């Protein structure tokens, strides 16, 4: 009996060794991909994981929220060690809790937005997204024709009523008559490449995670890797995500981005001040999205996209505080929520100032 047990243990140990070797190989190959990036040509092969044991412990770690304080400390230490070696700079992974009595909210003035996309790039810089092949962007700015969203203006006077025994009052034929309608985002340009903004004939609508009060993504996640924290922000445990993409499927705002390949983050562009649920470098095959810059906002700072906005179109604050910017906007402006019909109750408001 006991003999069988020791044999079993030995086998398990061997299996673990095998897995370590395998993971080591995987890490080396991914690091090789990193080195291949022109920006990091100087970065040597030792950007690879310095300690295979770290990877194994990371593999067996549980959901971060369910860990004991000791386990959390170890997990953070592991990550800091790994990132510091990989990006060759002192990296901190914070685990600051969200402040109590706070519900984070965002308001965006679409009449002010000039479509410069500084927010998009500030976000990429702050949050350590993959920089090339592909560059992952959490904010997408829609450039939409002014006035005519769901029909074609040149077709307005085309078409004619069908002749019938009632005279010329039949159903319209031609013109816009055969077009499916009701798609408010139709004719939005998401990849415009203008030298000068704003374009007079268009308005701009940036979309990012709407931090829903009733997030369909959280409901869809089979392992609870994504969840809503008590400040109302939807977060992801990148080490718990299994990459099934059910959340991406559920999201009506196209807010979630998947790391289809190994993220390509050059060491010199890496932001070393990170948060466990926020901007720490991600791995291949996990989901990521806007966190309202959890690494900043949990420490009382503003999100990067808001700080960079040159026209002050973005307002961020505590929805529970009647004196906050967001609450003032809600009280005094014409406010709407994007795709309200999905019943997700976003805490991201658009307004016309």
């Amino acid at each position, binding site marked *: 009996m006991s003999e069988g047990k020791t044999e079993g243990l030995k086998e398990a140990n061997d299996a673990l060794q095998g897995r370590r070797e395998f993971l080591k190989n995987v890490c080396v190959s991914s690091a090789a991909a990193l080195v291949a990036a022109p920006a990091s040509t100087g970065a040597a092969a030792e950007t690879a994981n310095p300690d295979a044991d770290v990877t194994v412990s990371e593999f067996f770690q549980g959901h971060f929220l369910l860990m004991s304080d000791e386990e959390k400390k170890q997990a953070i230490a592991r990550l800091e060690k790994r990132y510091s070696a990989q990006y060759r700079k002192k990296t901190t992974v914070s685990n600051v809790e969200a402040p109590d009595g706070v519900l984070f909210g965002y308001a965006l003035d679409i009449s002010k937005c000039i479509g410069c996309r500084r927010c998009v790039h500030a976000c990429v810089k702050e949050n350590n997204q993959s920089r090339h092949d592909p560059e992952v962007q959490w904010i997408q700015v829609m450039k939409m024709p002014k006035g005519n969203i769901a029909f074609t203006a040149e077709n307005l006077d085309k078409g004619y009523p069908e002749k019938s025994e009632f005279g010329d009052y039949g159903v319209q034929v031609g013109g816009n008559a055969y077009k*499916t309608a009701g798609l408010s985002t139709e004719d939005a340009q998401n990849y415009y490449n203008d030298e000068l903004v704003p374009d007079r004939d268009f308005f701009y609508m940036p979309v990012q995670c709407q931090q829903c009060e009733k997030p369909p993504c959280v409901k*869809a996640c089979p*392992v609870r890797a994504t969840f809503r924290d008590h400040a109302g922000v939807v977060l992801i445990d990148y080490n718990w995500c*299994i990459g099934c993409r*059910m959340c991406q499927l559920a*999201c009506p705002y196209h807010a979630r981005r998947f790391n*289809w390949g190994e993220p390509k983050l050059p060491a010199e562009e890496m932001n070393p001040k990170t948060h466990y649920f926020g901007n720490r470098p991600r791995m291949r*095959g996990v989901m990521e999205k806007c966190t309202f810059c959890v690494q900043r906002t949990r420490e009382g700072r503003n999100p990067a996209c808001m700080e960079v906005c040159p026209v002050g179109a973005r307002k961020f604050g505590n929805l529970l505080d009647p004196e906050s910017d967001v609450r003032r906007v809600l009280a005094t402006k014409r406010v709407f929520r994007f795709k309200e019909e999905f019943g997700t109750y976003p805490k991201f408001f658009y307004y016309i100032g």
Partner: protein
Amino acid sequence: MNTVLCFARDFGSYAIKGGKMYYSWLLFLGFFILVGSYTAYIQFTEGLIVIGATDQVTLESFFANFVFTAHVAAAAVLVVAPGYFYHRKDLKELAVMGEIIAMVFVATGITFILFHMGRPDRTWHIVPFIGHMNFPNSMLSFDTIVLNVYLFLNMIGVSYILFKKYVGTFHEKQLATWFKPIVFLAIAWGPLIHIITAFVLASNARVGMWATAVLPFAFLSMAGASGPALVVLIFLLARKFTDLEIGNPAIDLMTDIIAWSLGILMLVFASEFFTLLYPSAEHANSLVYNMFGHKGLNHYVPWFWGTIIALASCFIALLFRRVRHSYHRWLPLVCFVVFFAVLIEKPMILIFPSFSPSPLGEYTEYHVTLVELFNVLFVWALGFFWLTVILKGAIGILTGEVRHHSAPAVSPDGMRGGM
């Protein structure tokens, strides 16, 4: 020697023996398994970036094929149910073949899901108690449960029947008391895996094409068409190349099920298309894109019309008695077309076009990459390899060629199970 070991040895040695055709079929599958091992290695080391999926079209051909395997797996109960509900003797004897198909196709579907996942190494996160399962909120957690339970129900059923027949004690009176409930549970569970899989898709309000109450019915009717189509093909092959006796009435029943499933499917398509196209409101966008393309993006258009026409003409063809009874020519052809048309319907009508327009109004075409294609073929080749081998062994047991040396002599009645 232990009876179980004897069973495994005899079953295995019979299963891998065959004629030239048999070996060339296995070799054919072996080729795709070999190439697929390499492409699977590429995908698991470089990530899903080597396949065609994007943030806009997030479900890829693995998921589409998974839905199809659920079709066939669920439909396998149509072989089991007539025997146990309507006491069709001929089908009761063949019930084990339906269970084998269900078992192998569920396993194939689960393999597809592993290919679908970004982090297959973290699969244990969904196991209750070891990891954390978001039950009952996430529809995928329901799907995980029903698929695995269905797999085990069928594994128990198949091994019990085959083993009992092997040792020659498979008689109605001598069956274990737990066996009947397991069979009936498996019959009920077949449609269940299917309905839950439909709900995995239908639960996403933002994909207009799936936000429809007919989705489970579409799935069930396509299951009723594609599953029995495969069963008919297997029956025809089995009675041509082996000593297994399968009467025409068994095949005719399967053909009737295909015909009427296709009939219901026509109604489902018609009601779906009407409901979307008459008001031409927001949800119609994906369907119109699928049918006619959008501003020059018309990759799916030929697939759409091809699939619909193929399914409709198969339905019409099966209304003719001459086609239904043409066991060597038209019937296998029709079954082949039905099987592949339903398979093609999954990515090209159900999954890919539904993602356009995206929530931000983007239209995207999905192009399957070579690595993805070979990975799909890899999983299919693995699935068909196991299907072939297990069915071959099972036929050996059903015909009495494989049996334990202590088993009673084969009587004409007891030969195929003696119910």
